[in-house]
């Protein structure tokens, strides 16, 4: 069989079978088409404006490294006029962050971008290693996710930057769509697919320029561009709800490569079908790319983004809780309030009728009160509840601290 030629340039030998649609491409054309597609996403979604200062949430992993590389390339090629900065979070996980932070430091030099590192210890007084020492490995990803989310925003604020881009890819978004369907979480389903979260009211807006890029293509891009990235999984990585959705997506991708993109599409469309969403009445037809989301509960890079109520997000725990709810059908409101009182730990949280995220799944599935964005009473960070998730989690941790030190 003669070697097949690249489907685009038709001169070079095809070396890559695109994971997304199985077309055979040469290395140069693959890199070009990958960058072109990200450019298309950025341009058509009006993600940036000239002169904008943008922080790239950099973990040293493949996604954020590719994002930094592609953005640098596109910024120069298409004259975006962006001022790009790398922003890294040090969770304080020995053996994980030490090495990946070194990678980020090298990236900063390679891409000639300034780097800012913000540590959990300076932000919260706790490193992740200390958190795990206190609460164990189960459910610690909740802490990490909640803390990281704020950490990026706070770091950006320190630098006077109003826009943070993250390396979430199409697989991550598709995974979140399926996960929210499995959890029956309509509120999150309606937000998780937006390319931009946070609107004019929020201090820092977030976007995901790689939202339509396949994880496999990101790996290929990093490989062929010989990018320097750190590939060890987080050592505290859990077997959470997300894992179940992830394995399902991998199987679907093998059956039909377009499935990942098709799930993202379904997720975007279903967001408008959630009761209480604006739906087709939106006047800005087709331009509604920004979700007025509460900033706390976007997808987190690793692990679960559970609201801290079902630790570790195990399916069994949720199944058990659902069964209890079924048994007590009709008393749903009371139950959810009780759960919130006991789990949230703080008396302040129950003073008003607060919509409880991650509480009783039945109460948050659409008919409940709409979430209103406000600010956390303690730290001032934006939150739909009086006390933000990070402060709630910290309170629990701090209560336990003396016992640990004994």
């Amino acid at each position: 069989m003669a070697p097949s030629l690249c489907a685009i340039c038709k001169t070079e030998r095809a070396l890559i079978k695109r994971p997304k649609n199985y077309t055979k491409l040469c290395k140069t054309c693959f890199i070009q088409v990958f960058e072109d597609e990200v450019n298309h996403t950025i341009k058509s979604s009006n993600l940036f404006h000239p002169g904008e200062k943008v922080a790239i949430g950099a973990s040293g992993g493949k996604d954020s490294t590719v994002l930094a590389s592609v953005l640098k390339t596109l910024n120069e090629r298409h004259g975006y006029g962006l001022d790009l900065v790398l922003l890294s979070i040090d969770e304080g996980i020995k053996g994980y962050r030490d090495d990946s932070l070194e990678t980020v430091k090298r990236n900063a030099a390679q891409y000639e971008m300034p780097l800012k590192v913000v540590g959990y210890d300076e932000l919260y007084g706790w490193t992740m290693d200390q958190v795990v020492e206190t609460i164990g490995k189960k459910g610690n990803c909740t802490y990490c996710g909640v803390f990281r989310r704020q950490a990026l925003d706070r770091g950006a604020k320190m630098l006077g930057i109003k826009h943070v881009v993250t390396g979430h890819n199409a697989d991550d978004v598709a995974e979140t769509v399926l996960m929210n369907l499995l959890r029956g979480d309509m509120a999150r389903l309606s937000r998780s697919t937006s390319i931009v979260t946070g609107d004019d009211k929020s201090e820092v807006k977030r976007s995901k320029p790689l939202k339509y890029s396949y994880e496999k293509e990101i790996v290929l891009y990093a490989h062929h561009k010989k990018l320097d990235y750190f590939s060890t999984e987080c050592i505290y990585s859990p077997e959470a709800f997300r894992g179940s959705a992830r394995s399902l997506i991998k199987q679907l991708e093998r059956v039909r490569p377009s499935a990942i993109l098709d799930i993202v599409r379904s997720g975007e469309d279903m967001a408008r079908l959630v009761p209480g969403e604006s739906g087709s009445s939106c006047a800005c037809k087709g331009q509604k790319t920004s979700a007025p989301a509460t900033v706390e509960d976007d997808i987190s890079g690793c692990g679960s983004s559970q609201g801290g109520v079902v630790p570790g997000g195990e399916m069994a725990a949720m199944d058990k809780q659902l069964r209890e709810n079924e048994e007590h059908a009709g008393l749903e409101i009371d139950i959810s309030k009780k759960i919130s009182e006991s789990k949230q730990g703080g008396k302040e949280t129950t003073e008003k009728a607060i919509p409880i995220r991650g509480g009783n799944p039945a109460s948050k599935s659409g008919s409940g009160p709409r979430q209103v964005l406000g600010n956390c009473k303690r730290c001032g960070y934006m939150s739909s509840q009086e006390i933000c998730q990070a402060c709630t989690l910290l309170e629990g941790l701090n209560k336990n601290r003396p016992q640990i030190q004994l």
Partner: protein
Amino acid sequence: MAMESNSATAGSLTKPCKKCRVQEATLDSRGQPVCKDCFVKFIATKCVKQIGLLGRETMPPCIPNPSGRGPPIIQIRKYILGLSLGPSSTALLNLLHENIEYQLSMNRRTPFDLTVIHISSSLGQSSDPLTAHRKAYPRFTFLTIPLSFALTLPTIDWSSLSFTSFPPSSLSELFNSLASQSVASRTDIIHLLTRHLLLHQILTTESQALLLGHSTTSIAELTLTQTAKGRGFSLPWQINDGPFTIIDYTLTPTEEKKVLVYYPLRDVLRKELITYTTLTDPPLTELIPAEEKTVKENAAVVSHKDLSIEEVMLRYFADVEENYPSIVANVARTTGKLVRIGTEENEAGNLCGLCSMPMDGEGDERWRGELGTTDDKKGLGRLCYGCERSTLG
């Protein structure tokens, strides 16, 4: 007194049924030990509740009094049942039959007449797959319709598919002409054609509703299956009970028809229905062909290319149903709350020419995810995202 006698009876049993307390519990019903009778009764109650809801939606048809005077004559409601021959639809057939028998035994009117329709996809089938069914349920009318009849349906806009000549003369011509040649696409289209044939039968049999045997598990499966096919927008039309618009494209101007689709077993898990088929006398398992009984989810995967999205989901949910049944129920319940957008504009131009589901113009405008395909794969714009994927690749 009653309490005493109950506990006395219960005391003589090793494991009394949690519900009636007079029989030995031999089965598990949602975490409770129950006897066979209570298990069957529980399934029947779930079904009867839904049939009752449908009965309120549909008034029995009336015809004018043939004498020209007097009150109009009230006729019997007419439904059709889609029978795949699998455990769920077979269970529904039996439950509907028992419901009618019960009503008649109480000296009530016949609640509805039923035409049972099996869409046969197997080519050159010599024997009638419904012989045993006709014998077991002489009250009902049974029809077997070959899937290829879908090619003559007036309710599909064949011109929306870019054929040189349409409609295609055979199913193989249809499948061979599609740009997408995967098993996933082919299975998707077979499902669409089957549904279309059943919907069209509501019109030809002058019935009022189509009943489908989907269990809670199938509805949860369908939710994720359609999501994975890019058909999320039309989910509320596929998983909820209620009216559905089909269009006769052969008429000028095209004519809209509203039909009702119901899932009476939406509150019963698949594993419960499978158990149910073994508990009736005679057992329904005799009516279920061997290939429907084999547990597909356990078969080894030879090649993922030969799998459909439906099969992937079947395997996935078999596991979830076994270990976390409440999660299955929760998926079905919460996605049932998604609202239908665009019901007002359900006319020919707004419905997909192939699946008849509403199309999502706003979603198309917002969509930024290119699959990197070339322009010659662009459709005519009269197919929804999911149908473009299955026909054009």
